[in-house]
């Protein structure tokens, strides 16, 4: 048996709580005797009776807290600090004051429920401070917000490395973590394929195409649209890849990104080659499509080739005019461009009065001060309505993205203008990125768009190919 006696002056607790604390210590394994008490004469005499060493507490007075413990060994003593702390300080409580005041910043919100993850979607110029606080509070962070400076992105990711945390973003639209969709994510079936992507809609398209083929997803981690830039150096993508490679539940990994910086692309390919898990690399570019990458995954897992869901239009007639694309997903727009340009020549990537154009309405330029077009289609609807009377337009290509976080019924909003466009002789082609589990209802959305007069394709590459052919192939 060994004794430990400590005296802390100026710490006061009422005698009832001290009795409870003494009891809690005595009930702990390895403790034979314990007294937690203020140093009153009575308590000092109790300690003497218990044969604790008087020299240890003889100087204590009524304002001093004495903790005297007799235990079997040092190890038993060591475990008692926590027991004592718990006994003397607050547990969960009901104040009777109704709802507690709401937390206002990320770290106190996290603390209130013991969070391990932060999702940040406040305006970009404020997002860095909250994200950094979240990292410093030990949370993995997904920064959905865009308009965060590159310098701040680098700092966030450096801080995350120091703490073995993952920063997804800024401008990370989509993640699926253990079946939970964060940001814009589709309710795809669980499985053994994991995706790492610096592209939100790229992840959504691949996971939905796989879902259509009956193949499920384990993780899909977004890393932010600039992660594969020279400055960021794929910090989060490389770390996510390594973590997923070590995951026994992941049987194949897909890396998807908009065109990366060349040096970073090389580093990524090297890292992919070092993985013990098979890795399919899908860097967007001419000749490389999300559907193609998905097909490679399907063949790697030994599944039969899939015919992706589509609701094509019956005829190819359309009024003369050029192709205009109205996209909400950046990667989907880029994919369409890489497919269409070889067929019909260069297209404008910004709004234009004549000629072919493919515009991403999810770009910073159109989102400052308003919600993303996957949520709020106002700008896109306004442009589509104007297109009805715009005789320079013959073919319209657009994307509709379903899933958590997205507009609850995009087809309902789009159907009237599609009807008008079709009525005016415009060919409307829509890619529809979604899965049968999505809250908006995949089939329902497809049918609404199709009934209004659009040709609908799950695969954006298929939609783009069709649009290109209508213009360039004269079909």
């Amino acid at each position, binding site marked *: 048996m060994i004794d430990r006696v400590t005296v802390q002056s100026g710490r006061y607790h009422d005698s009832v709580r001290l009795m409870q604390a003494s009891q809690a210590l005595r009930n702990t394994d390895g403790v034979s005797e314990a007294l937690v008490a203020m140093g009153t004469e009575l308590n000092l005499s109790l300690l003497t009776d218990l044969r604790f060493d008087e020299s240890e507490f003889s100087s204590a007075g009524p304002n001093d807290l004495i903790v005297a413990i007799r235990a079997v060994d040092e190890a038993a003593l060591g475990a008692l600090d926590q027991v004592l702390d718990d006994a003397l300080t*607050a547990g969960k409580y009901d104040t009777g004051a109704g709802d507690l005041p709401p937390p206002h910043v990320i770290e106190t*919100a996290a603390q209130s*429920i013991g969070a391990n993850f932060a999702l940040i979607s406040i305006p970009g110029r404020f997002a860095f401070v909250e994200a950094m606080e979240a990292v410093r509070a030990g949370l993995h962070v997904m920064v959905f917000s865009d308009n965060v400076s590159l310098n701040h992105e680098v700092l966030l990711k450096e801080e995350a490395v120091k703490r073995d945390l993952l920063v997804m973003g800024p401008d990370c639209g989509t993640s699926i973590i253990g079946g*939970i969709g964060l940001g814009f994510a589709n309710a795809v079936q669980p499985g053994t394929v994991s995706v790492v992507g610096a592209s939100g809609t790229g992840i959504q398209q691949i996971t939905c195409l796989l879902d259509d083929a009956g193949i499920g997803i384990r993780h899909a981690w977004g890393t932010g649209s600039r992660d594969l830039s020279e400055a960021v150096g794929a910090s989060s993508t490389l770390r996510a890849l390594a973590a997923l490679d070590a995951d026994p*539940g992941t049987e194949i990994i897909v890396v998807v990104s908009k065109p990366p910086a060349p040096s970073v692309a090389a580093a990524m390919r090297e890292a992919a080659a070092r993985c013990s898990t098979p890795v399919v690399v899908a860097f967007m570019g001419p000749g490389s499509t999300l559907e193609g990458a998905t097909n490679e995954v399907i063949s790697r897992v030994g599944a039969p080739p899939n015919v992706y869901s589509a609701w094509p239009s019956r005829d190819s007639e359309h009024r003369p005019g050029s192709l205009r694309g109205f996209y909400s997903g950046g990667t989907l727009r880029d994919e369409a461009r890489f497919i269409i340009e070889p067929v019909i020549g260069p297209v404008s990537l910004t709004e234009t009065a004549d000629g072919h154009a493919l515009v991403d309405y999810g770009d910073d330029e159109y989102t400052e001060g308003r919600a993303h077009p996957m949520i709020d289609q106002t700008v896109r609807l306004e442009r589509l309505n104007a297109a009805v009377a715009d005789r320079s337009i013959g073919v319209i290509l657009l994307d509709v993205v379903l899933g958590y976080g997205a507009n609850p019924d995009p087809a309902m909003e789009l159907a009237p203008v599609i009807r008008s466009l079709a009525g005016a002789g415009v060919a409307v082609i829509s890619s529809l990125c979604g899965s049968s589990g999505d809250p908006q209802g995949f089939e329902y959305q497809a049918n609404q768009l199709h009934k209004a007069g659009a040709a609908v394709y799950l695969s954006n590459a298929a939609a783009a190919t069709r649009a290109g052919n209508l213009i360039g192939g004269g079909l």
Partner: protein
Amino acid sequence: MSLERLIDDELIVATVGVEILQQALVDQAVTSVVADWRPPTAGTEDALATLAERGITHAANELAIARMLAVRPQLVDVASARDVIPGMTETTFLHAGPPLTWERASGPIRGALIGALIYEGIASAADEAEEICRRGDITLSPCHHHQTVGPMAGIVSPSMPVAVVRDAGGDGVAYSTLNEGLGKVLRYGAFGPAVIDRLQWMEKVLGPVVAATLHQVGAVDLQALISQALQMGDDGHNRNRAATSLLLRSLGTGLIENNTVPVADRKEVFQFIDGNDHFMLNLLMAAGKLAVDAASDVPGSSLVTTMARNGTDFGVRLSGTGDQWFTAPAPIVDGLFLGAFTADDANPDIGDSAITETVGLGGFAMAASPAIVGFVGGTATGAIRRTLEMYEITLAEHPAYQIPQLEFRGTPVGIDATKVVRTGVQPQINTGIAHKDPGVGMVGAGLVEAPMDCFAKAVIALAATAT
């Protein structure tokens, strides 16, 4: 959790921002919470980003708050201000709050200065005293610059007896005047004959008797008294009845046994302390001053080390910005008024007593004090909410000061100025209200919120420090 554990652990998600994204988590039955986020105080955005980039604030604050909480205040003596307060001269008059000139001084400060000049025998009447002040014949200096704090006007003149509070765990020392009681008293700007007589008696009798008693009973552990008082219904600012009672018990034996002092004087001293529920306030403020001085001058720290008002300006200082004051106009106190007085009689907020809120008492311990909930809408639950709100802007929970109503949770302590500007939650202060005219005195008590502008300026200055 580590990156490896992101693979298998259950997600628990805190969110700020777009509501639809949080709703999606709720729809997926994920444990989640959304912060009631608002943009930071206008003008602080870049400063907050700079501090986040630099990343030293957290460690600096940990150091500063540890120093603040390590202080062990002991009441050891009462001595003459001229003998103990650093920088005190025969023409030095200390005042509450940030630096101030006679020209900008409010009624209660002017009244208290007039009273102090008469008390010191420098002036014989009010107009003479005013003339002396106007000519600048005396030196005005903030108490806070002299290891001293004073409630309300906070005037300290050379002959006044001051409490000496020492840190048992270090070498710090702090001073405060002795509390005169309520009503027509110097610190509320009154200076009539009764006020001056009382000050004379405090100098000749109260100070020496308390000093002799302390020499007999030994140092009084103020932290222990305050801890107990919170569990007996004090907040440590607007209610000090329990703490004063406990102090009197501590002094009792010494007071009875001290044969060197005439028994009539001892009886008067006993009756004076017994009849003044706020006698402990000044001592508790000195204990607070000891704590904030210990926490000062930690480079990069956003810990608030001073909140003090001079009746004209409200001033804030941070650990990381040294002696620099960040001021805004002193606000009007929202309160309850004595007798026929109304809000029109009230002077703007005044006094160093917000030191109590700076160290986790007063408004920050409101939940402990159901007896004074009249100041917060009259309900005990309102008092609890007030205190709970303060946890978000503070760095720690006080290890000794506990609130029974919150299951003995420590009081929120150590205001982080960056949290104030990020959350928009202003520190709340329980306080007395002085009449705006010199010579009148106390008119009420109530609640006031520290002006956001002080904290915004402080955070901007902290970000501009070179470290």
